Every structure is written in C-alpha cells, then in structure tokens.
C-alpha cells in the first residue's frame, strides 16, 4: 500500500452525505451488501448527519452540493478563507454567536451590518431551521378567550 497523495481534495459534509446516500440506494437496487465494516460505518455516518442541529437533518434538505459554488461567489467580497467556507456549509451558522465560532477574528473583520449581511446570505443560499412554534400556543389562548 502506498499513499500517493495524502490530501487530494477536501469534501464538505453535504458532498459526503450525497455520496453515501447514493451508494446506499445503489446497493439496495442491486440487492448488494458491502463488507460489514462499510455497512456499519455508513449507517453511523448517515445517523450523524441526520441528528439535529446538523443542517442535513432538516427534511426536506434545504440545500445540496450545487449550493456550494453559489455560496462561495456570494461570500467572495467578504474574503472568507476556504476552511471558513467549508465550516459555513457544514454548520450553517444562523446568528452572530455561532458565526463567531466559525470565523476567525469576526469582531475585527466585520462590523454588525456586515455580520448580518453574511448571515442573510447563508439563510438565502443554505436555508434555515423553522423558528420554534411558539405562536401556535398564543393562538390557542386567543381562541379560548374569544370562545367565552
């Protein structure tokens, strides 16, 4: 065994998720089972992607691999590094606290307006989780009061 190139490319979670899901479908169609270590690992990985708050746990999926070049183009004016872009695609930060975790030195590089703009781009291209359903409770209260 020879390692020809230790790092030929980097993959985001969504790309690996697509590869493994497609492989699972293909094997199932061919009624084929891979070696047990592969099957176990694939199940564990798909379970990991499927666990909230991983953005890939949101069904239906809000973005796919085609969103990556779109996001890169929109974030270019902000000079965000490759590693940071990968983390944005993987983590999908939705507020300034989680954005700060992903970006290096956010406070010095971007003012509040720019931070909000970046988050809006993320929401636009990658989507977001639905807000928690608090409004429903209020509505139920209103109807009961009116009913009286």
């Amino acid at each position, binding site marked *: *065994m*020879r*390692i*020809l*190139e*230790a*790092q*030929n*490319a*980097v*993959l*985001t*979670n969504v*790309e*690996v998720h697509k*590869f*493994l899901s497609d*492989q699972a479908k293909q094997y199932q169609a061919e009624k*084929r089972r*891979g*070696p047990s*270590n*592969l099957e*176990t*690992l*694939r199940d*564990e*990985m798909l*379970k*990991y992607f499927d*666990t*909230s*708050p*991983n953005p890939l746990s949101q069904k239906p999926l809000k973005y796919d691999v085609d969103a990556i070049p779109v996001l890169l183009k929109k974030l270019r004016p902000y000079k965000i590094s490759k*590693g940071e872009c*990968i*983390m944005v695609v*993987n*983590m999908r*930060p*939705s*507020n300034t*606290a*989680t*954005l*700060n*975790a*992903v970006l*290096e030195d956010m406070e010095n590089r971007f003012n509040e307006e720019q931070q909000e703009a970046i988050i809006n781009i993320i929401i636009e291209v990658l989507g977001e*989780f639905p807000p928690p359903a608090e409004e429903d409770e209020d509505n139920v209260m209103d109807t009961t009061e009116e009913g009286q």
Partner: protein
Amino acid sequence: MFILTKIADLVQIPPSQFEQHSRVAIENNINAKYANRVIQKIGLCICMYDLLWASEGLIGHGDGFVNVNVEFRMIVFRPFKGEILFGTISNASPDGLKIRTDFFEEIFVPYKELPENTEYDHNEKAWVWVVSEDQRMHYDMNETVRFQVIDETWNDQLLENGGQEAVERGKSISPYTIKGSMMKEGLGVCIWWDY
C-alpha cells in the same frame, strides 16, 4: 472534516469472487480492507470514492488469486486544526469532557479548554459553566455540542515484540485521538446558542 486521499495498492481477488463484475469485486475488496480503519497520519478511512486506474489481473504462482494493481481515492475523516464540529458528550471526569460522534469516539476536551468559571460538580459528576450567580449552564450527558479541533495524536499500534501483551496494549490505546476546545463564544452545548 473529510478529505480525499489517493492510494495505490494491490487487490487480490479469490476465485470465489470471480463471478462478480471486476469493478464490484475490486470495490468490495478495497472497502473490506480500509473501511472504518485508521491509517497513521492520514485519518479514519470511510470508503472508496472512485477507482482511478486498475491494471490487468495477473494470476500468481501457487494460488488462484487474481492480482490487480489499483489506484483509487478514499474518503477519509480528518478534521483540520481549528475546524468546528458537532458531537455529543459521552463522559465527564475531573480532567475534562469526552466527546463522541456516531462514528468516532476518541475526542477529549481538557478542562483548561472550557470557558473561564467552569467548575466540576462532584455530586452530579458533571461540568457546570457558572455564567453568573443564578445562571449555571450544565454540560449534560448526551447533549449535542459544538467543539473546535485544536490537536490530534497518532499512536502507531505496530507490534514490535509481538505476543499477547503487545496486542492488549495496542487495543487499549486509540490509534487516532482528537483534542478539542469549547472555549470560544458559540461553542459548547448547542441549545445555549441556537435561537
């Protein structure tokens, strides 16, 4: 957290697999050998991504195996330094927190990498971040967290002396361990920050 590694290897297909399409037999052989195994200084192998080249099969002397030289790319789990990942808390001790993902167990966050004013509660056997007098945030078991990778350790389990003792020792040390941090704002238990 995933990379593609280009590898060259020799695949040996036993006669029992001759009825399979060569592509299928080669892929199965590669995955059987590499999936869920750690290659030192490379990472945890997931599965074969694509087959770049395969030679003609040559039958060796003495056995009926068909030997095929292959070059392929493998998906490998190896987060880069500074990368942020999701994980769940699997264990708490006075030294720090142990974190795992569904497919990787050996992630450790030492207590120095937790935010200031975090203390260990011996009664509950859990770490608590004391934000203020009445705001105590608990690092509870099985909570999903965000953590940052700050270092990795490789332990080559090569058996130099052989024997049962060396095998036992090899089993107890993980070949690949990740050191993490939850110091930065936005890291730690996810529900604290997600709104």
